[in-house]
């Protein structure tokens, strides 16, 4: 039973962290413009995030340190301040984009322009964190998140061409719009390898009190949780490829997005789309906001915990409160949530090397991980992840200018 409960953490992390406004928007755009040809980008980034999440969980279980704690303690303040500030900037934009995602879902249902919802949504997210316990945050989002399975159902109902789908898993060169193709591939990778997800997961593992005997469960959670999120993201891409592409809708405007499920499932599909987008983004909002509080509290060595009364960790509560307020302002001033999302994903990619390289190095540290340091497989993946991150980080800005 305990194991089942622990897998819930993984599923929450995957719904809130994996399937968010970034993953939905980039997958949908990929499908709408290039059909199933970019499936490999989702598969590749899933593999990366599975390894990264497993590492963060292993670090927490073995050393009882969260990633932020361990990074500052091992590399010192003068170094850690750089990834810390980068992460805060990325998180602010990501949170703004996620709030934008919930607002869009509300706009689709009510017809009221999304801006009106920015502050009410931020307030709702805040209320959920304020009164909720950590397990409520985990379980409620995990259960509600199952609505996103609608995409998987729709993908099968559209009877896609399975040969083309299988071919999509093999990276291929684009036949048209090369720059746009690579730009979307890069955005998918930026959307799926979300650093906040790694910090959140490691804080959650410490909050849940994991120990060395939980390492197997950790591995299972990383694989199953991320695979679930990945499956839905792939379904989004396939649904977009079978509905938007033939109709010639290029997803350049966010109003076009609900068309994809409406074509597959009728009017119910329209509501399923709004619900999936709204819930996935709401889960992500909760996770990003908490992740920022965790990161800050751990960086400065404050008392922290979602289960403590807000008054007994006032600084922790003040950080997510203030950050949600700021992020709602970002949503309010952004011209369009879809553009904000794509820009944020590209910026994440620019910052990835700074955020990931120290993590991979730390995973080989004897003091923290003892005999549970990275094996050859994790280190090989670590090198692949860091090299990819560096290459993408260099390409991100030129590609955004040519292909974005």
């Amino acid at each position, binding site marked *: 039973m305990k194991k089942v409960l622990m897998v819930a953490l993984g599923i929450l992390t995957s719904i809130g962290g994996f399937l968010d406004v970034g993953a939905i928007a980039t997958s949908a755009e990929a499908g709408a413009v290039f059909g199933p040809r970019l499936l490999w980008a989702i598969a590749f980034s899933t593999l990366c995030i599975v390894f990264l999440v497993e590492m963060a969980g292993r670090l927490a279980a073995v050393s009882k340190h969260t990633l932020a704690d361990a990074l500052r303690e091992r590399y010192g303040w003068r170094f850690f*301040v750089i990834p810390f500030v980068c992460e805060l900037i990325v998180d602010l934009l990501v949170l703004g984009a996620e709030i934008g995602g919930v607002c869009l879902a509300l706009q689709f249902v009510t017809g009221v322009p999304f801006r009106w919802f920015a502050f009410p949504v931020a307030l709702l997210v805040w209320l959920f964190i304020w009164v909720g316990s950590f397990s409520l945050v985990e379980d409620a989002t995990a259960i509600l998140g199952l609505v996103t399975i609608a995409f998987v159902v729709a993908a099968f109902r559209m009877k896609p061409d399975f040969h083309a789908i299988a071919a999509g898993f093999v990276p291929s060169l684009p036949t048209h719009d090369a720059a746009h193709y690579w730009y979307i591939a890069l955005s998918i990778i930026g959307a799926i390898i979300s650093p906040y997800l790694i910090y959140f997961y490691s804080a959650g593992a410490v909050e849940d009190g994991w120990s060395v005997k939980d390492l197997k469960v950790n591995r299972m959670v990383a694989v199953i949780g991320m695979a679930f999120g990945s499956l839905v993201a792939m379904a989004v891409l396939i649904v977009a490829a079978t509905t938007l592409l033939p109709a010639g809708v290029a997803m350049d405007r966010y109003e076009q997005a609900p068309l994809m499920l409406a074509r597959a499932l009728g009017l119910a599909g329209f509501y399923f789309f709004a619900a999936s987008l709204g819930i996935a983004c709401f889960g992500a909002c909760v996770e990003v906001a908490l992740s920022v509080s965790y990161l800050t509290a751990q960086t400065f*060595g404050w008392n922290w915990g979602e289960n403590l009364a807000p008054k007994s960790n006032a600084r922790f509560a003040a950080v997510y409160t203030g950050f949600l307020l700021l992020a709602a302002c970002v949503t309010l001033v952004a011209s369009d949530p879809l553009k904000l999302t794509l820009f944020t994903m590209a910026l994440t990619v620019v910052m990835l090397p700074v955020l990931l390289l120290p993590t991979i190095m730390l995973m080989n540290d004897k003091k923290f991980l003892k005999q549970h340091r990275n094996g050859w497989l994790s280190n090989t993946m670590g090198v692949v992840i860091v090299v990819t991150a560096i290459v993408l980080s260099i390409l991100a800005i030129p590609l955004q200018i040519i292909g974005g």
Partner: protein
Amino acid sequence: MDLLLDVLDQQLVDKNGRKAGKVDGIAIELRDGKPPRVAYLEMGTDVLARRISPRFERWLQKWRKWMAREVEPFHVPWSKVKKVHLTVDADIDAAKEPVYYVEHWLAEHVIGPIPGSEIAHEDKQR
């Protein structure tokens, strides 16, 4: 014990098991004819600013002066440090020290007045 690796930037924990910030700096006392020794651990934004660049610290202090707010530096005498393992344990009561100034201020003026701020959760053991 390696001061840089095992003490600097580690978590400071007080006698009640409360997290009391990270060890932001270490002050070493030079003595005539005797080996130098650790005088105290220091903590606070000034120390963090100084570690990035002394210029930052000067800016921070100017800004403080302008705001007319004095901040006592927080020092933990080395004699109060009881144990250095995964954390640095000291025989102090953090809640009564200046590291908790912001925490107390926020609890009293910002977070405390909001309804529900005293509700804690007892989660099922996992």
